[in-house]
């Protein structure tokens, strides 16, 4: 079969156009904000990343990239030395004069929202999709996310028909010491509620906990995140540094769950839905698992 020259020309033309479009998309990316960087990677943008901030630790391959430091204390020249075309970050990026300097150097500074809600995530993914040329994938990712959250909601509705939401506290610590309790308006709070827990903390933001107030709260489940340690070591350190926790119903019944602290920074990230499942399982163990 002979391909007509026009057909070849059309195909070639489409290919060239696609290539041209691709080359109009920014190729060199610097990303600031853990969750944001994860979404960039999820949309296949990792090859384009030339630098990330210190909160971008997932996936582990990001750690091999040049570090631009803490996202609130960026260095204009440092970032410019990576010759990026785009600097992506949330409103947590700063300081503002540095961002202005980077903009005036011709770098596209793209702002995303770090609010922990679905609407923000939707517009973030749309924006990312456009910038990466992966609009369809972005829509798909969001769709999946929404569905996962919906499934979670449905599960909760069923469970909560017969069982009460457990009182929960989420503590963020460093090698067990000086833990902060997550209050309202935090990503942690969003997670706890989505997982079907009742956050006993009534304050806003993160606050150090006092032993007395803890005694008054009696959480049935404790969730902890440690910046320095993981697993058994973290759990042991937490109870060693804060013996008062041992007297909580949660500790007595062994209902102490761990979450990855990087989930709590920079808005909603891609790994949240699976972690929600894990949390829910911890909040509502099957009847045969519940201790008498």
């Amino acid at each position, binding site marked *: 079969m002979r391909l007509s020259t026009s057909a070849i020309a059309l195909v070639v033309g489409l290919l060239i156009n696609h290539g041209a479009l691709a080359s109009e998309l920014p190729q060199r990316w610097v990303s600031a904000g853990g969750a944001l960087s994860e979404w960039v990677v999820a949309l296949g943008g990792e090859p384009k990343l030339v630098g990330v901030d210190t909160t971008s630790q997932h996936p582990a391959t990001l750690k091999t990239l040049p570090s631009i430091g*803490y996202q*609130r*204390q960026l260095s204009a020249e*440092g970032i410019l030395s990576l010759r990026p075309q785009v600097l992506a970050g949330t409103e947590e990026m700063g300081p503002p004069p540095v961002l202005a300097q980077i903009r005036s150097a011709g770098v596209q500074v793209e702002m995303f929202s770090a609010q922990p809600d679905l609407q923000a995530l939707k517009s973030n993914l749309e924006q990312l999709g456009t910038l990466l040329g992966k609009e369809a994938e972005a829509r798909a990712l969001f769709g999946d996310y929404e569905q996962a959250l919906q499934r979670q909601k449905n599960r909760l509705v069923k469970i909560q028909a017969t069982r009460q939401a457990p009182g929960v506290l989420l503590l963020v610590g460093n090698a067990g010491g000086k833990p902060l309790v997550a209050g309202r308006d935090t990503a942690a709070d969003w997670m706890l509620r989505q997982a079907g827990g009742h956050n006993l903390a009534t304050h806003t*933001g993160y606050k150090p906990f006092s032993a007395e107030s803890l005694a008054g709260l009696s959480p049935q489940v404790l969730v902890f995140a440690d910046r320095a340690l993981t697993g058994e070591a973290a759990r042991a350190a937490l109870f060693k540094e804060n013996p008062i926790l041992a007297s909580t119903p949660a500790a007595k019944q062994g209902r102490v769950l761990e979450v990855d602290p990087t989930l709590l920074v920079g808005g909603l990230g891609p790994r949240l839905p699976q972690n929600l499942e894990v949390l829910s399982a911890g909040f509502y163990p099957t009847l045969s698992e519940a201790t008498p």
Partner: protein
Amino acid sequence: MTTLVKPRTLFIGLTLLCGLATWLSLALGPVSLPLWDTLRAALRLMGLPIDAHGLEQAELILGQIRLPRTLLGLAVGGVLALSGVAMQGLFRNPLADPGLVGVSSGAALGAAVAIVGSAFLGGLPDVFGPYVLSLCAFAGGLGVTALVYRLGRRDGQTHVATMLLAGIALTALSGSAVGLFTYLADDATLRTLTFWNLGSLNGASYSRLWPLLLVTAGVALWLPRRAKALNALLLGESEASHLGVDVEGLKRELVFCTALGVGAAVAAAGMIGFVGLVVPHLVRLLAGPDHRVLLPASVLAGASLLLCADLVARLALAPAELPIGIVTAFIGAPFFLYLLLRGRA
């Protein structure tokens, strides 16, 4: 007795050092610019008609980022060193530091109020944002110093020993107030506060630079005129008075210059320590305690030291940046220990 460096030799050496530090600060950075480009961009900035082709990046980096930063470093280093000399003269003690009159802790308090307060208010509009922090820090520094000065005055005289104690007390008080603000701050605000406390020349811009340049020029031109009186003050307040020095007026000037200078420096660049303590010491070791040499030499030495520290801050962890207060502490603290161990400086 250790031979001292002659004033002329010292000034030539320090001027060369300062010039070298300035040049390195302009020529080096995370973005590697070809030297030829840097030179041409510099000449263009000075107004010479040089072909702009291919120089856009160099002009931007040099003109918008490195030059204001270098100027900031020169001014901050110079004024902090001068304030160190002033305080060591006021307290007649070579271990005195500008922070003794409370200006540093007051500025830290002002900054804490601004950072935490604006977070509480949901963030101020950007146009005021950077200025609010500087103004609050400056106001805090001046306010606490004024209070310390007031507490040290009795019967129309300023009692330096009382001022010292008042400074210590108010520093402690400011510290606990900052602690309170730290408690009220959320995680993100806390990190902003921490970074401010470590100091940085980052984000320097011409608009925020000129108040500091004015203050530095003012203090640097004024204090050397009181050099001989400062020398006499070292003999003792009554001895200086017997030599015809207006001691009360001089003390007032020293406190005022320090409050103004350090307040402006801290407002522009956060807390940078050790420069006010270490630089006058170094210069005295080299050239003796005569203020006619000490004051101008300290300006040059302080400016050079800070620019060198900033080079380390910018390059050590590039593309990230070390807070400069860490670098000056790393250099300053061991040096200070060395001075103490060596005995009398």
